[in-house]
């Protein structure tokens, strides 16, 4: 999974871009990235080594979304993830995940040109995430990723001002998990496409909980901070152990299991 790529290179926000809070982190990186074009060489190199790549990307117009999708698929991206939900770039590309019509339109436009499956990553900073998820499904999304970070802030009492240079940032880590889990649960009741759960996964138990809520896969970001890069292997091993101990033959058998009446 790449960091989000945009139509042009962006340096991101100045520091502080990250601040730790109880149960997680706030970040306001500001979508630093070399631009889709600037990343293609690295993408081709990854594909040369046989690495599966999900290219996360964003844009501000339908045309840019389409040209980004074409370029990334052309360079071998195995899937695309539309980041419609970065909370840290006010007034710029980003928060179209709050609007049902835009989500459906952008998703459909990307699907029209994309040769690889398209995931749509949603924001929890909306009144009704289920309506947005349905819009993504109607637009042809192959999967829904739920969720991006929760908009938040930290103020320092000594300096008497916000810590993040961007004032607000996105909350990730364990504190986000119950919110994100609820989002996955609600989306699972409303759509048929697979859901990728994310928000506060740092061990196999977190991952299993997301699967029970309806997620087919999980993404891990902040968990790296707590567990190191080994977190990915450990979570996979832990899920396998859970399946074995509880008599499940496949991970498919636990997806959405908590919804049974």
């Amino acid at each position, binding site marked *: 999974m790449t960091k989000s790529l945009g139509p042009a290179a962006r340096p991101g926000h100045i520091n502080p871009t990250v601040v730790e809070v109880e149960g997680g982190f706030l970040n306001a*990186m500001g979508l*630093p990235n070399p631009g889709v074009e600037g990343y293609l060489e690295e993408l081709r190199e990854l594909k040369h080594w046989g690495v599966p790549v999900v290219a996360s990307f964003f844009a501000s117009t339908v045309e840019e979304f389409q040209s980004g999708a074409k370029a990334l698929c052309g360079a071998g991206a195995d899937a695309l993830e539309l980041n419609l939900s970065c909370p840290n770039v006010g007034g710029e590309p980003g928060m179209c995940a709050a609007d049902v019509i835009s989500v459906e339109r952008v998703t459909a436009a990307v699907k029209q040109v994309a040769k690889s499956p398209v995931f749509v990553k949603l924001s929890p900073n909306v009144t009704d995430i289920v309506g947005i998820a349905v819009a993504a499904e109607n637009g042809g999304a192959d999967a829904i990723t739920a969720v991006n970070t929760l908009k938040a802030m930290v103020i320092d009492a000594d300096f008497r*001002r916000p810590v993040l240079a961007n004032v607000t940032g996105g909350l990730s880590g364990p504190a986000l998990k119950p919110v994100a889990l609820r989002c996955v649960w609600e989306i699972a009741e409303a759509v048929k496409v697979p859901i990728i759960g994310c928000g506060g996964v740092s061990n196999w138990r977190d991952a299993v909980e997301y699967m029970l809520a309806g997620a087919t896969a999980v993404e891990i970001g902040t968990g790296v901070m707590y567990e190191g890069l080994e977190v990915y292997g450990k979570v996979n091993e832990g899920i396998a152990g859970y399946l074995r101990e509880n008599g499940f033959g496949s991970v498919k058998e636990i997806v959405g299991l908590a919804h049974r009446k």
Partner: protein
Amino acid sequence: MKVVRIERVVQETPDITTLYFPDVGEARPGQYLMVWLPGVDEIPMSLSTIGDPSSISVRVVGDATRALSKLSKGDRIGIRGPFGNGYTVKGRHPFLVGGGSGIASLAPLAEELAAKGAEPTFLIGARSKDQLPFKERLSKLGLRLVVSTDDGSEGFHGYASNYAGELMAKGGFDQVYICGPELMAAKIWADADRLGLPVEASLERLCKCAVGLCGSCAIGPYRVCSDGPVFDSAKLRGVAADFGKRRMDASGRMIRVDH
């Protein structure tokens, strides 16, 4: 995030200032703090003194370092950390090479090595003699202190990397530590490795989160903020395509290392 008050300011050279503040807790030589100046920036700074008081030594290279170097006693800074792995204290006859402000992170290492009974040789290099920090502090340690200046105003006339090469070729060292401009460090590392000397070098990349998440400081398979900043010989071999050659700018594009 913790806010500390500056207790003392020492002008080391015309462009290097040391800020002393109360102990930041357990730390090893080579570790760094993220130092926050509200409204300006938050930047990584190696600890130049460990214990109580602790210190950072700031060389003016941009807006944040300029603002930090203008602080006075009683001013406050925000700090996170200490972060990073730090140096491993080893060797009977270690050779330390510090270039300019790179001398700052090696100074507490030299003190720890001397306290452990090692006999370090410390080469400090700068453009000219008025840009050499910590000479007095280091000369008190009873180690062998040697100097190089690019303009020949003190000690060896020429680059620290050339002088380091000469000294290493003479033999007698069993460990090499390097901190300074990357082209200098890469050359010394190459010479030391050719001679079979184990090396630890402190690397610098754009460090934003300091906790291994954001990827802005990635080099080869490593993150300088959390897998480093100190790289041993094995890790340095793993970043041979980058060290002294290329680095990422803020947007993640590869650019050439030019100093």
